[in-house]
């Protein structure tokens, strides 16, 4: 790695070492992400394999042998006898996949539009930023539900479950690109007038090359921060949509779907079915958010 | 070392430290000088030489983690280097006037200049409101603002850059301070306006017997405005003496280089003398004399011993071989 990246990273690394919150958050996030990625290897059961399910195991309490089968489940089972621990691992996979992909989608869209708006200016900028303004007046969840509803209307019934995840990603991504676009546009407006950009124009570089090779690398720090914080928001948005029943289908349950399933049993005493997925969601979103907060402080030279 | 009882401001062996995570930086190192009533002392040096840091230390405006590590600062016979918080703030308002490079940051954009002048006068002088208003108008007239009676109710943004700097000077003077610090007061201004501001500062300081510390990087301003000049290099005083002597007959090798590299208005296209290299960064100061790596006369002694200390009120350079250089 180059000297600049090293030096730059060493400052960030230093501030990282001095922030216990950041260290713990990063560890928690890493553990959760690894657990999700390697879910098939870690999970004691495959909750999506009907053959491995035994309805007799339904409603097992955590850490107690089942009255009929004698099997013990760490975090208990749900009504169909699925191991809650395993469903959480698999559910986290869906949640994280949707979260990451949605943020990536929002990032690419937002950064591109922000760069173009900031660099080209004029009517292009006006149109892009007015669309962004209009979008901001709708709550993100509403936008996502709208897109979800439209998608549901145009997809044939038999494909709905397959496309559900991708509709979810697009819905969350589309409701989230605005902040990327705004920040990148602002940073681009500053960079655009710097003399190194003039120097590049002067030698006849095309606008595309200037935006991509000169301006983009200089506006990425704030994007990184927003992306991290957006990840937490996207995971929560996904859970919210799934909880409302417009997200991940029960055949591919995410954490939100699990919470929705669990709330049906909350008042009948099977508290573990909702509690453990909910706690997992909380810990995941909180750690990612704390990490984002720390990153913002570490990359903001004014606060350092 | 004894302080000079005649002087308005006496600074003795001032050291400013900035602890960092790697080491302790020393942007101001054993600086001593006096400013007499009615005298303008110029502090000149390149960026990073410690001239603004010295100024900020004197008026108690160092921002943490920078702090005065040792040394004494006396203003009108009182020691002020240990003052902090409210006493320092009161002292600054009453006895010290401040003029900075950017007049916009020195003025509150939300208040009219009249409000700001009256507020400062009322806080520091025992006068009635009407009298404060009259004094504010007089102050504006004195710094050459036309139609002061009407313009006193204008906001800072309604003035041009040069007029704004005049307002700042009026504000700095309105509590009748005995000492004014002017940090690059004309750097942001155009040549023609700069000349006006310098003439104004000089006239006011002479009339009121105010001591002025004028910090600038512009040798021309130093020549025209100051009585004595202190040349700073890497946080230390390299040379201190009457302006004319230092500029026409510099003694320290750095001052000599500095004069040679300044293009003279009266000279033609011949090559400028240049000092090779650049000022060392604070975290990599050389041992011995700070200037020795760039000095063509450097000898063994310069590499090992720190440069000799400059006593205040002495026209000599902080160099081991001042006498030798001219033999």
């Amino acid at each position, binding site marked *: 790695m180059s000297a600049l990246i090293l030096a730059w990273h060493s400052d960030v690394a230093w501030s990282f070492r001095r922030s216990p919150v950041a260290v713990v958050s990063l560890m928690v996030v890493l553990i959760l992400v690894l657990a999700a990625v390697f879910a098939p290897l870690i999970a004691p059961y495959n909750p999506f394999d009907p053959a491995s399910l035994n309805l007799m195991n339904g409603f097992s309490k955590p850490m107690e042998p089942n009255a009929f089968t004698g099997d013990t489940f760490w975090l208990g089972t749900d009504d169909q006898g699925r191991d809650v621990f395993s469903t959480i691992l698999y559910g986290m996979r869906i949640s994280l996949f949707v979260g990451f992909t949605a943020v990536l989608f929002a990032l690419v869209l937002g950064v591109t539009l922000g760069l173009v708006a900031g660099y080209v200016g004029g009517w292009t900028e006006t149109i892009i930023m007015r669309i962004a303004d209009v979008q901001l007046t709708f709550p993100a969840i509403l936008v996502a539900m709208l897109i979800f509803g439209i998608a549901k209307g145009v997809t044939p019934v038999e494909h709905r479950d397959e496309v559900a995840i991708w509709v979810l990603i697009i819905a969350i991504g589309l409701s989230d690109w605005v902040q990327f676009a705004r920040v990148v546009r602002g940073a681009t407006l500053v960079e655009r007038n710097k003399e190194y950009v003039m120097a590049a124009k002067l030698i006849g570089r095309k606008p595309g090359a200037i935006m991509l090779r000169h301006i983009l690398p200089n506006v990425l720090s704030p994007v990184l921060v927003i992306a991290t914080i957006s990840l937490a928001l996207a995971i929560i948005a996904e859970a919210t949509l799934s909880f409302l029943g417009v997200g991940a289908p029960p055949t591919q349950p995410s954490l939100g779907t699990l919470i929705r399933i669990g709330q049906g049993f909350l008042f009948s005493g099977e508290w573990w079915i909702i509690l453990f997925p909910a706690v997992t969601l909380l810990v995941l979103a909180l750690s990612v958010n704390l990490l984002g907060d720390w990153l913002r402080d570490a990359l903001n030279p004014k606060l350092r | 070392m004894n302080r000079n009882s005649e002087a308005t401001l006496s600074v003795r062996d001032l050291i400013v430290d900035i602890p960092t995570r790697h080491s302790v930086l020393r942007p101001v190192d054993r600086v001593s000088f006096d400013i007499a009533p009615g005298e303008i002392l110029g502090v000149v040096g390149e960026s990073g030489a410690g001239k603004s840091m010295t100024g900020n230390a004197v008026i108690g405006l160092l921002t943490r983690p920078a702090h005065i590590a040792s040394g004494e600062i006396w203003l009108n016979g009182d020691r002020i280097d240990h003052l902090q918080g409210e006493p320092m703030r009161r002292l600054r308002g009453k006895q010290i006037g401040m003029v900075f490079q950017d007049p916009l940051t020195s003025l509150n954009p939300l208040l009219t200049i009249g409000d700001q002048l009256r507020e400062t006068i009322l806080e520091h002088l025992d006068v009635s409101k009407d009298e404060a208003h009259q004094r504010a108008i007089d102050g504006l007239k004195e710094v050459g603002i036309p139609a002061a009676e009407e313009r006193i109710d204008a906001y800072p943004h309604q003035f041009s850059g040069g007029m704004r700097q005049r307002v700042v000077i009026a504000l700095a003077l309105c509590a009748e301070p005995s000492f004014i610090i002017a940090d690059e007061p004309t750097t942001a201004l*155009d040549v023609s306006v700069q*000349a006006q501001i310098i*003439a104004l500062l000089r006239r006011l300081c002479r009339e009121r017997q105010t001591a002025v510390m004028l910090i600038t990087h512009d040798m021309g301003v130093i*020549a025209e405005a100051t009585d004595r000049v202190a040349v700073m290099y890497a946080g230390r005083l390299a040379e201190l003496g009457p302006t004319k002597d230092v500029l026409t007959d510099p003694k320290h090798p750095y001052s000599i280089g500095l004069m040679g*590299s300044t293009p003279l208005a009266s000279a033609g296209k011949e090559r400028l003398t240049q000092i*090779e290299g650049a000022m060392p960064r604070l975290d990599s100061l050389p041992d011995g004399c700070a200037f020795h790596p760039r000095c063509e006369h450097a000898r063994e002694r310069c590499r090992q011993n720190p440069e000799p200390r400059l006593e205040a009120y002495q026209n000599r350079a902080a160099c081991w071989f001042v006498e030798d250089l001219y033999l």
Partner: protein
Amino acid sequence: MSILVAVRNLTRIFDVSKPWLNRLIERRDKALLTAVNKVDFEIEERTVYGLVGESGSGKSTIGKIIVGLLPPSAGAVEIEGVDLYREEDDAKVDAVRSDIQMIFQDPYASLNPRWKVASIITEPVAARGGDTTDMAEKLLEQVGLSARDAGKYPHEFSGGQRQRICIARALASEPRLIVCDEPTSALDVSVQAQVLNLMSDLQDEFGLTYLFISHDLTVVRHMADKVGVLYLGQLVEEADRDTLFDAPLHPYTQMLLEAAPKLDGFGREATPPEGEIPDPINPPSGCVFHPRCPIAVERCKVDPPELRGVGKTRVACHLAETSRD
């Protein structure tokens, strides 16, 4: 000697009005700022042409128009006889453009912080698909840096060293004209001397032509062969260096020279100039300098003076013949 750059009747007007909705509500007309007003001069090959003026005089705008960063509103820029903005043959324009380079004022903003020095320096050549082997190293040594610096990033250099890198980049495409916009205003005196000396050396070595834009009279006097003085977008006086500095004809030039702080001006009690630069959106009628001019007569308030030859000087003043008395 041949003429390398000819600036003909150059005018640049900026629209500085508020958005149309505000104008509609506040019932205001469009606000137009004439940054450059019918400026006309020529630069001979292998000479240094100095442009001086205070803020708002349009000197930087002229520089940007000449290098092609900003189109003029009227008038023309001819370089090697090719009209930069009217020539139809793109190949010709491209060839001329590769002969022009620029050095900027702020050495901290003019180098992309995320690029290595080698890529920065060779970009002008790389952008045109040229061979850049060992080029950065060679250029770095020519501007007094070390070949090893090619692999570093800009933040590892001081202001003066960065300006050397900018000069190396400007030299990469082997230009004939380099426009220098306040190249040393951000530098300390001792570093400024190093950079000015380097620029002079390179001029001799490569036969360069400089357009040297600055507000600093002493620096311009040190560098330039011929000097043009701008006031509110207009060229008010032009002469070779010694004539201009020894016998300025325009009252503005006289005022500027008088006001500039002098190294030997100990305790000088010169009367400072009157007034400040007027608002460029509503410039004064007639001669733009008349409200501040100590010798203005009735005619100056109504009749804008043309640039005309008086002795070896071109000057825009009705009273140029008597202004020195």
